[in-house]
Structure formats: structure tokens, C-alpha cells
């Protein structure tokens, strides 16, 4: 794959070895944004929203919200 093509596909930052897109920014957009289509979808979007909530709960439970200061 040529450098020119790579920069076209990845954007300047990634082609230059910069940080990849943060997963959390991606999930903001892919789970809350993006066009929602109807008709014969295998999974209803309501289920995806549920997944989102579950995932956040899991993530919070892993880290804990209040690290003890002492």
C-alpha cells in the first residue's frame, strides 16, 4: 500500500504515526450517532442502547467511581 493511499485511508495523524482514534470517542458516535435504519434489521436499535448502558455499568464497576484519597 503506497504512502499516498495510506494517508488517504487513515488521515494524516494515523499515517504519520499519531495516536489512533480513542475508543470512547468512537463509541460516542457509533452507539449514539449514525443513521438508524428500519426494516428487517437483525437486532433492534433499542437492544444496542441497552448494551451501551450495560457496558458503561461494567466499565464503572471495574474502575470504581471514587478512588480513596488515602
Amino acid at each position, binding site marked *: 500500500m503506497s504512502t499516498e*493511499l495510506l494517508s*488517504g*485511508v*487513515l*488521515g494524516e495523524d494515523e499515517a504519520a504515526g499519531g495516536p489512533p*482514534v*480513542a*475508543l*470512547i*470517542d*468512537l*463509541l*460516542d*458516535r*457509533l*452507539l*449514539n*450517532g*449514525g*443513521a*438508524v*435504519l*428500519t*426494516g*428487517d*434489521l*437483525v*437486532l433492534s*436499535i433499542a*437492544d*444496542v442502547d441497552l*448494551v451501551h448502558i*450495560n*457496558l*458503561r455499568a*461494567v*466499565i*464503572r464497576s*471495574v*474502575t470504581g*467511581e471514587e478512588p480513596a*484519597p*488515602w
Partner: protein
Amino acid sequence: MTTPSHVPAGVPAAAGDELTYVYAVGRDGPALRAVAPRLAGADGGPVRVIGADGLGALVSTVPADAFGESGLATQLEDLARLEAIARAHHSVIDAAFGEAPPILPMRLATVYLDDARVGAVLTRRHVHFRELLDRLENHVELGVKVYADPRAVVGTASVAATGTPAGQTPGAGAGRAYLRQRRAQQRGGRAAHRAAAEVAGRVAEVAGGVAVSRAVHRPQQGQLATHSGVNVANEAYLVPVEHADRLRQGWHALAEDEPRVSVEVTGPWAPYSFTVSAEAPEGGGNP
């Protein structure tokens, strides 16, 4: 309760073994047709174009056991799989956005039973999709996040609190020092949050007259949050591409002289946060 281990995995789905995953919809044409064959889909398979009524959907064929209703739900609950699918989904959209804009990105996990059903959606919605693509043409999405960073002040308080004041027993001194430090932390935290809220309030102001649309995301927190500060605002703006750099600079300038606040700008993104109206006329529900 035991689960029999000899039951074969991948019980055949009623509608067939394969499904069609949709990444984005654009205008069917040479640019879209050229970018598709170079891309890999959510399952690593080749991306292709389904065309109908002048529109093209970027799709790939995925196995029904992993991307059917239960398979998909299982995958999305697994953070590593979720990340793999999200990144694959994004890489298809990002490439198409770069080389064949305008592009209408689909939400994660937009999976149809077969190609014919995807074509039927394009046909049924083609007027609306076309309007949306026209509106998105020459526009990019920028993300902007504002963080409060209480540590910028706490640092000073910790130094002041390390010594035991003269004439006090070490125990009592340590207790008072701790309380002093705690109060200073709280004051610092409140001041940082106030300063961040003020900056956040000016984010939209700076974008005014340039951005054509605004979307508000939930503030980021938890394990996946990448910044050490507290995220107080997480917004996205749809911006004409020629104004994107200037707006980025304007947002960064907001917190230049404020050490307790930082501003992070992401993008340009495909217009993920500005596709909600794709179903509005038909669905009528809230976004």
C-alpha cells in the same frame, strides 16, 4: 445447572448462514466503487457496494452465527469484540468519507438478512437519503471536549500540607494538615469546575456563525476515558470543511490562559452525530 458441552456451536440460522452488514450510504459512482474493494469489513471480509436509485450502500457479508441477533448481542457485550467491530466499522466509514464524500454513516451493528433488503431500504428512502447527503456535502464533524483539571490547584495544596506546623504533636498536625489539604482540594475542584463550565459555555459561542448543527454527547467517564481531568462537556459540531481549522484554533484558544481547564478537539469525523434525522419523517420518535 450444567450446560451440555457436546452441543455443536453455530446452529444454522433460519434465514441462511450469511447476513449483510451495512457501514454507510453514499452516492453510487466511481469514487464509491473504487474505495470499496480496498476495505475490509467487520468480519475481515471484503467490502462491496449495493446500488439502488443512484445510492450506494457499503456492505460486507458476515456470518449469521456471529452477527445474528444473539451472536451480535454477545459480541457487543465483550469489550474486545466491541472494539474490533467498532474500529472496523469506523475504518470503512473513514475511508469512504475521505475518498467518496458525502457519506451517511450507519449506526454500529446495522445488519440485514440479505442484500435485497438493503436495496429495498435504499429504494424506499432514496429521496430522504439524497437530501441528507446534499446537506452533509462539504461538511465535517468536529468533536470538542472540555475538562476540569482540579490537580492544577491541588498540587500547591499538597506541598503546603506536607510539613507539620511547629508546636503541635505530629498526630494532631497530620490530622489538621489532612483536613486543610482536603478543603483546599475541594475548593480547587470547585474552582476548576466553575472555570471549565465557563469555557464550556463559550464553546457554542465560538462555533456560532460557522457550525451548521450541534450535538451533545454524554460526558465521558470510566475506564475508557482517556483524559486525566473531569469531562464537563462533550459536544460535536457539523462544520463546513473550509472553516474546520479556524474553529479548532478558536476552541483551543478558549483555555489557553486557564491551567485548570483543557480543551480537546477531535476529528474531522464523518458526520456520525448528524444523521439522526435519517429516519425522522418516517419514525417520528425522539432521537
